[in-house]
């Protein structure tokens, strides 16, 4: 117990950093759930592909740590752009391959879940077999820096060196900590505004409220669904870069656990609720850290899931309730 109090600031900041990543990935789950009432199981792979895109950009540019600040910023922005583009693209592909036909057929939700699970396996495996795929198309040697040790951890060479900024309660808050938390909040605010103010955003809300009525009012439902996947994918791409800045490695199957956690965060905050996703992420990140500190890291997931159960029992629609999604009678 005293350990928790003595290191409260450190546990809090690192918990928030982790929570920010959860929150950004959770946005993808929450948006798709809000619009389609479907659990987009493969969203974790959208994130995973984004993380590789960011890694590959840094590999291609080969920037060493400690470069001049404008170079560092440029590389990071390029990596961000690549991650968002790839994640957005994979999300759109997912919508096309795993969902569109089922949505048109109005198939049971469970079937869409299985479709997404299949897509998730396939996407993760493709990344895990990327060396084989490269060999197959005869580019194994050319692509070596991008495809080697395909089943292993791949390191992200962060061009930005971690530096302490200021010290609070015995913990030196680093530039990376600040960047991650601030960007996550900014992205969330931007998304919130997007959904409130833009035409597409209004469309997303309309479809989430009542898909049929929205269609009658001239909203192109299919376009809105695509936009939703795209936006969720872009957020996952941003999350991927932030994740790499903090944790430094990615892996073909890294998405699965993160996806489970992010989905938990989305439910915790109130699935379908954009602000809830980030709040859920923060709560989950903090709970994991505090829980680990109190009873040991081996119990962190147990703490996280128990917290989820308890919150759902007292607030059946999550902390902030469902807002994108319709209140079902």
């Amino acid at each position, binding site marked *: 117990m005293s350990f928790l109090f003595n*290191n409260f600031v450190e546990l809090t900041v690192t918990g928030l950093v982790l929570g920010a990543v959860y929150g950004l990935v959770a946005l993808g789950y929450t948006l798709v759930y809000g619009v389609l009432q479907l659990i987009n199981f493969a969203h974790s792979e959208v994130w995973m592909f984004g993380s590789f895109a960011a890694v590959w950009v840094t590999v291609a540019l080969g920037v060493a740590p400690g470069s001049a600040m404008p170079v560092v910023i440029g590389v990071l922005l390029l990596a961000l752009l690549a991650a968002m583009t790839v994640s957005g693209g994979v999300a759109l592909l997912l919508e096309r391959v795993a969902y569109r036909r089922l949505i048109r057929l109005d198939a049971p939700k469970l079937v869409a879940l299985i479709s997404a699970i299949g897509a998730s396996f396939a996407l993760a495996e493709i990344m895990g077999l990327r060396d084989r795929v490269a060999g197959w198309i005869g580019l194994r040697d050319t692509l070596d820096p991008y495809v080697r040790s395909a089943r292993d951890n791949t390191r992200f060479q962060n061009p930005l060196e971690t530096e302490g900024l200021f010290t609070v309660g015995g913990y*030196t808050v680093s530039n990376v900590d600040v960047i991650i938390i601030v960007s996550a909040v900014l992205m969330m605010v931007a998304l919130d505004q997007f959904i409130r103010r833009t035409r597409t955003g209004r469309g997303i809300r309309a479809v989430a409220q009542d898909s049929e009525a929205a269609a009658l009012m001239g909203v192109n439902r299919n376009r809105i669904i695509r936009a939703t996947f795209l936006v969720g994918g872009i957020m996952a791409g941003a999350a991927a870069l932030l994740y790499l800045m903090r944790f430094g490695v990615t892996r073909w*199957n890294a998405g699965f656990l993160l996806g489970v956690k992010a989905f938990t965060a989305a439910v915790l905050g109130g699935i379908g609720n954009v602000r809830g996703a980030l709040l859920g992420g923060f709560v989950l990140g903090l709970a*994991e850290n505090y829980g680990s500190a109190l009873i040991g890291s081996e119990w962190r997931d147990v703490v996280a899931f128990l917290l989820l159960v308890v919150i759902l029992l007292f607030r059946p629609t999550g902390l902030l309730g469902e807002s994108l999604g319709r209140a079902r009678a």
Partner: protein
Amino acid sequence: MRFSVKTGAPLLALALALSACGTSGGDDEEASSGGGEAGTCEDVAIGYFGALTGAAANLGINIRNGVQLAVDQFNEENADCQVSLEEYDSAGDPNQATGLATQAIGDDSVIGIVGPAFSGESDTAGPIFAEGGLPTISASATNPDLSQNGWDTFHRVLGNDASQGPAAATYIADVIKSEKVFVVDDASAYGAGLAEIVEESAGDAVVGTDTIQTGQTDFSATVTAIRSSGADSVFFGGYYAEAGLLVQQMRAAGVEATFVVADGVKDPGFIEAAGDAAEGTIITCPCLPPEEEQEFYAAFEEAFGAAPATYSAEAFDAANVMLEGILEGNTDRESLLEWINDYSGEGITKTITFDEDGEPENISVWAYKVENGEIVADQEIETN
């Protein structure tokens, strides 16, 4: 594989091509060249048993490649005695291991197995191999209990956790002269077992412990605990994936304690994951740094386009024990088992002899150090 096949035999060619893909051995060539003269070596195979797919695939592939290299070199040197390699991909799953082990004992051509790779699958496959009289040499399963089950076919070429753990503790106490040790494990059978032994051996010097989960990427709570304990060394029992992440996050948080790990981390993947943070890490391993290693290293790199990784060298040794036996005419399970039990020879990792439980008799634990991005030998650790 030749593609200049005469018309009229395309089907046969396809069949050959397919089966060649399946076993990746020289089996078919031998059959088609109308063998027979090979006499004692006809239709002999050794097996690799362990993960080739799934989450543990990378460790398994390291081992398979070691075995593959040994078999390929053997076949090249002994044109009249071709041995094929059967792969049993358990995905590290004890459940799948049951069926595969049963399959292996049912295939009379398979007379020896390198594996099973992990302790869990050993637990289900071990009794089956014992029943089928099929000798096994594991290159990687380090659970001390495995040799105590009375399976007379069981062997391994590396020291178990009970020999390595105290050595790591000795090193921490005598060489690093650490007074405050923090022990972390990954809750795997391997890591937790090892950490427990280190914890016992280090006694009062242990200032804290924590357990992480394999697959976890955020270790902030653990890092915080290490830091606030004021430890000057951290022992981690587990594999290189988590080790890389842990040490990187420790260094990022400004923890300077010496990072001590065991053979599960002796892999280029550790340095790949940790980058500069890996510098100075101490890796204990019950394996010699042999002169032959250079030759092995080069051959391996040429064959697989990557440096040998965790347990590749052990697998190479294990396979060679069996291959030597086959060359001596031990081409059935019973005689090969006897050969292995009586074996004594120089491997690239150690001098190999087995005691009656199948444990290696000469275990010397060495400490390695990460310097300039390379894992280099540091010194032998005296254990008593």
